């Protein structure tokens, strides 16, 4: 029985829909509930968009997305060859500030942290990034 799925894709904005579909198809095949899939899609969308816009600066590049089931956990790993950037170090936005005074940015990373249970970053052996997103015990279909 397949426990992981892998997508190699060019990091371009037009591929975001394909990436979202990949998340939905894989997570469903791995037996995860439909109610957690939008959260995972959101997190992957945010990370992939940041890789496209900031990592590769709109020039495109490779992106590998692996979705795996380990026990009851859904694990997504996103790997790119952009310059090392650790999004877990981006400070959370100050949501108590009046809206007009809030700085733009930081929302995407914050959403990822809220949508997933754990987020880890490491620099790969080729000098790129690997971001691991974990959703614990995402309600399983029995």
């Amino acid at each position: 029985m397949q426990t992981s799925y892998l997508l190699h894709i060019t990091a371009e904005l037009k591929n975001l829909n394909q990436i979202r579909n990949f998340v939905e198809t894989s997570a469903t095949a791995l037996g995860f509930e439909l109610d957690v899939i939008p959260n995972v899609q959101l997190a992957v969308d945010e990370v992939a968009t940041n890789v496209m816009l900031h990592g590769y600066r709109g020039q495109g590049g490779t992106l590998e997305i692996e979705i795996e089931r380990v026990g009851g956990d859904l694990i997504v790993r996103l790997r790119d060859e952009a310059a090392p950037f650790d999004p877990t170090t981006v400070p959370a936005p100050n949501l108590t500030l009046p809206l007009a005074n809030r700085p733009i940015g930081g929302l995407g990373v914050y959403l990822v942290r809220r949508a997933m249970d754990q987020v880890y970053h490491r620099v790969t052996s080729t000098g790129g990034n690997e971001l691991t997103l974990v959703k614990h015990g995402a309600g399983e279909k029995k």
Partner: protein
Amino acid sequence: MASEFQITISQQQGRVPVTVFHIEGDVIDVNSYEQLEAQARTAFEAGARNLLLDMTKVKYISSAGLRALHAIFVMLRADTPSESDETMKKGLMDGSFKSPHLKLLNPSPAVLETLRVMGFDMFLEVHRNLKDAIASF
């Protein structure tokens, strides 16, 4: 394939005229948020001051979509000198402030959750049917 993003606009009349954006597209993301903002701006420049976003078909909204909502909220406030920043700030703190000019119709549970996580439910009213939504402006 994602459904193509487009917005159908209808004008409704409650106590005040309300412009309704029926969003036909299942995501508001980095590829579609600019279109939403641009159409809101066009409507504003044509005189629209009360905007209802019909989110019935939207499956989820990313941070880019949230930025569009924020930009539209700020734009609709620009023409209302009677609603001061101080009033809004106080209202946000005690939970009493909701935008009188920008409201949402029927967001999905996933969209609502994203809005809640980012605190957008603090300033945006949500309605479940069109009639009540129009009447609320």
